[in-house]
């Protein structure tokens, strides 16, 4: 009896302040703490992966080999890709989901808080293993983030085992995170919060979570087959034993294409929250946004082989994948048109979250255009595996996914910290990032069109000028991100006191709680059926 009472007392305690010390972070089951840890972790990984990019760009600054040998160069590209995809973008989205989904749907926490803790805490180990493998004899993984067999099996160094193990851990973490999101959204919405009333960020994460659960096991299967091919004598991908190396690519891209949407759908949700807030006008076409997101997710399972047009597929398969890939740009277009229509005849202001969101819309669309070009199979034969592809996916990933994450950070920092960030510094960060990201990635289109293959440590002299410009853009972009770090630290430490709703046009339950959001929010669910969320007073 007394224990029960004791526990209840302790529980009551939580309402007012968070426990302190290291154990707060180690044992926490609080969605806000876990969200913060995810976000910090992803930012650290962003800097680590970014330094590797700096090594790559430094080597490519001039033709010839200057700083690193080709084997190490390949390790840098590989680990840069893996870290950015699995360490920077995905955990950042999970961090945002943790912080925002419960607050947006009026739930007290995530549905499975202990699993939440675990899904975060295995991540640092996964990346520690991956990074440690760089110091092994023979170096770390050097076969590209796509780890095509047999380069990753018969011809790889022994760090492959560590690579496989660490990808497994990342996969488990993502799957647990996704399950948590789904269970939370399905079971913990406040009364009156029907599916079609959920904020789009919640919707897009809901759909993303299903994609994750569908494809992360496929990735796990792929790495496991690589492991057994290399160490246990199987021949899944070895023609000599009856296998097929191209089958690896089918399996990988069956995971890989939905994966690129996993990295962009939550961004769609973020800008769909921010643009209406600063245009002071409701989102245009809410329902069609939801349907478009679902359509993109569905189609993303039918386009994987557009990464494999040069592998020698039958013509009918090439045609099928070309048509499906072109088709996927229709719902994507709908989203862009809807954002523009949301701005149309609004009353727009340009705070930093809005600036990043607008840059997102424009630059992501440029990435979408090059994606459409890549979809045209006969021309893809020319573009494939050149810098044109590198330009394409950096436009959608860096000025797409990463910019949206920056936008989200600025948008919700006042809610997280209780302070306004330094708007001047933030604008500096924005303009520095915007200019440098274009200097960095735009010329890559030209290099690719003119014939520069990707993943090479040295190039012929005709590409010298372009690469020099690109590298300068790269260093500038890298440095600009330190401004972001500065703004965030400054904002955490202090600053102008933030009101519950710092943005005039913002809508949603998260703005009904005080800033900073108390350690526990919505212990009693708000009733959203009676009053519109913004009219509720919940402080």
């Amino acid at each position, binding site marked *: 009896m007394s224990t029960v009472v004791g526990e209840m007392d302790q529980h009551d305690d939580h309402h007012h302040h968070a426990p302190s010390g290291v154990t707060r972070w180690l044992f926490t089951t609080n969605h806000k703490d876990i969200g913060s840890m995810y976000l910090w972790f992803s930012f650290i990984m962003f800097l680590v992966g970014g330094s590797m990019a700096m090594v790559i760009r430094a080597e490519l600054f001039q033709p010839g080999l200057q700083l690193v040998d080709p*084997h190490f160069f390949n390790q840098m590209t590989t680990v840069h890709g893996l870290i950015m995809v699995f360490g920077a973008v995905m955990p950042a989205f999970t961090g945002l989901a943790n912080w925002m989904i419960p607050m947006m749907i009026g739930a007290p926490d995530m549905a499975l808080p202990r699993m939440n803790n675990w899904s975060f805490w295995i991540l640092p180990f996964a990346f520690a293993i991956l990074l440690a493998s760089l110091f092994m004899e023979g170096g770390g993984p050097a076969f590209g983030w796509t780890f095509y067999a047999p380069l990753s099996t018969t*011809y790889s160094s022994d760090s492959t085992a560590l690579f496989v193990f660490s990808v497994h851990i990342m996969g488990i973490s993502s799957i647990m995170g996704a399950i948590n999101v789904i269970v939370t959204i399905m079971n913990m919405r406040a009364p009156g919060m029907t599916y079609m009333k959920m904020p789009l960020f919640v919707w897009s994460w809901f759909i993303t979570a299903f994609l994750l659960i569908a494809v992360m096991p496929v990735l796990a299967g792929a790495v496991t087959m690589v492991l057994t091919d290399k160490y246990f004598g199987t021949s899944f991908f070895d023609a000599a034993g009856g296998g097929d190396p191209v089958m690896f690519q089918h399996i990988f891209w069956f995971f890989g294409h939905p994966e690129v949407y996993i990295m962009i759908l939550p961004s769609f949700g973020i800008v769909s929250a921010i643009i209406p807030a600063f245009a002071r006008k409701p989102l245009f076409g809410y329902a069609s946004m939801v349907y478009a997101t679902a359509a993109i997710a569905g189609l993303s399972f039918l386009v994987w082989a557009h990464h494999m047009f040069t592998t020698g597929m039958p013509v009918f398969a090439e045609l099928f994948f070309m048509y499906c890939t072109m088709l996927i740009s229709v719902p994507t277009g*709908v989203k862009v*048109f809807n954002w523009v229509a949301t701005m149309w005849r609004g009353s727009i*202001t340009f705070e930093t979250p809005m600036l990043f969101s607008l840059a997102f819309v424009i630059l992501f669309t*440029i990435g979408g255009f090059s994606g459409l070009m890549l979809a045209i199979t006969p*021309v893809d034969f020319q573009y494939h595996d050149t810098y044109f592809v590198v330009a394409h996916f950096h436009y959608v990933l860096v000025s797409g996914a990463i910019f949206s994450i920056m936008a989200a950070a600025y948008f919700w920092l006042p809610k997280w910290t209780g302070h306004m960030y330094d708007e001047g510094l933030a604008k500096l960060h924005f303009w520095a990032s915007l200019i440098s990201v274009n200097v960095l990635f735009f010329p890559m289109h030209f290099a690719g069109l*003119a014939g520069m293959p990707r993943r*090479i440590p040295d190039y012929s002299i005709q590409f010298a000028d372009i690469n020099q410009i690109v590298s300068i853009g790269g260093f500038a972009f890298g440095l600009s991100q330190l401004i972001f770090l500065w703004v965030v630290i400054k904002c955490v430490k202090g600053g102008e006191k933030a009101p519950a709703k710092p943005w005039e046009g913002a809508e949603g339950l998260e703005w009904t709680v005080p800033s900073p959001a108390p350690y526990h929010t919505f212990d009693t669910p708000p009733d959203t059926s009676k009053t519109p969320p913004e009219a509720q007073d919940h402080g």
Partner: protein
Amino acid sequence: MSIRLITALTAMFPIAAQAQSQFNLTQGVTEISQRVYDLHMTIFYICCVIGVIVFGAMFWSMIRHRKSNGRKPATFHESVKVEILWTIIPFLILIGMAIPATSTLIAMEDSSESDVTVLVTGSQWKWHYKYFDSNVEYFSLLATQRDQIENKLEKGENYLLEVDRPLVIPTDRKVRFLITSDDVIHSWWVPDFAVKKDANPGFINEAWTKVDQPGIYRGQCAELCGKDHGFMPVVVIAKEPAEYDKWLAAQEEIQRKAKEEEQRLLAMSMDMTELMDLGEQVYLGSCAACHQANGEGIPGVFPALKGSPMALNDMEGHIDIVVNGKSGTSMQAFGNQLSLRELAAVITYERNAWGNDTGETVQASDVNAYMNE
């Protein structure tokens, strides 16, 4: 910002196209490559038009519909009509794009009725060409000097895009390529032909071209294939059919003579200096990419030969691994890549360089005897 970029880009492309400059896709030298280029420009212009409309609307509202202009926000948030419209119109544009793309693709994949067939085999990090219907075959390796790569010498005009023996094909004839690999996946790419096809180990892919103009065309491996992926260029020389036939006949003759010469030289033995000189040359050309010029290899990836027990003691094993390679590793069989003299020389070199002072020589006849065992 981006509008300006787009307009700059539009302005740049036509100029770039005329000048065959370093900013745009090549128009190439085949009918197919021209069609591919046209598709590329069409889809690019379509994107520009859509971009101008979408970004135009965006910038319009960013400039006009701002709060600082005293704007009161409108409240509309839905219009089924508009939404259907902007679903249907892109769809129709895409159909318009898919039609020419489909016909070009079908033409590209039709490799029937070819006049000449070449088997292209990739391996780490070189290409091998074998002409069907004749006895000509050879390897094609990067010809750029190491010193240029390491910035000790000025880089030449075709830095990294030059090979010792280019592929030669006839103009105006349909040339079919059968493409495969001996180890990892490579990809054989010549932009001017709009041909890029993966070389998959254990499988054979097909591609073809019909070149209009004689000339030298350069490309590169396009699939990450390990350490020296950036150093395996493709060079193709297209010659008038008559000249091509002459060239092919001459090559057949040369290769036949070389085989005879090899047999004749078997009886002769070379002295240590001759062996070491030739051996060093072969070693730097064929082995140093992995085992490194200093013989120390890359620990954990490519073994050191300096001080290796095999190079110091096990002569038979040494000949065996160089001649037959070791399956399941990147150590290739060099028995069919190098002549008997070269094999003998490189093995001798490995047994006597970098302080491996065994003092032993290996002669072409020894290698021959081993191979005939």
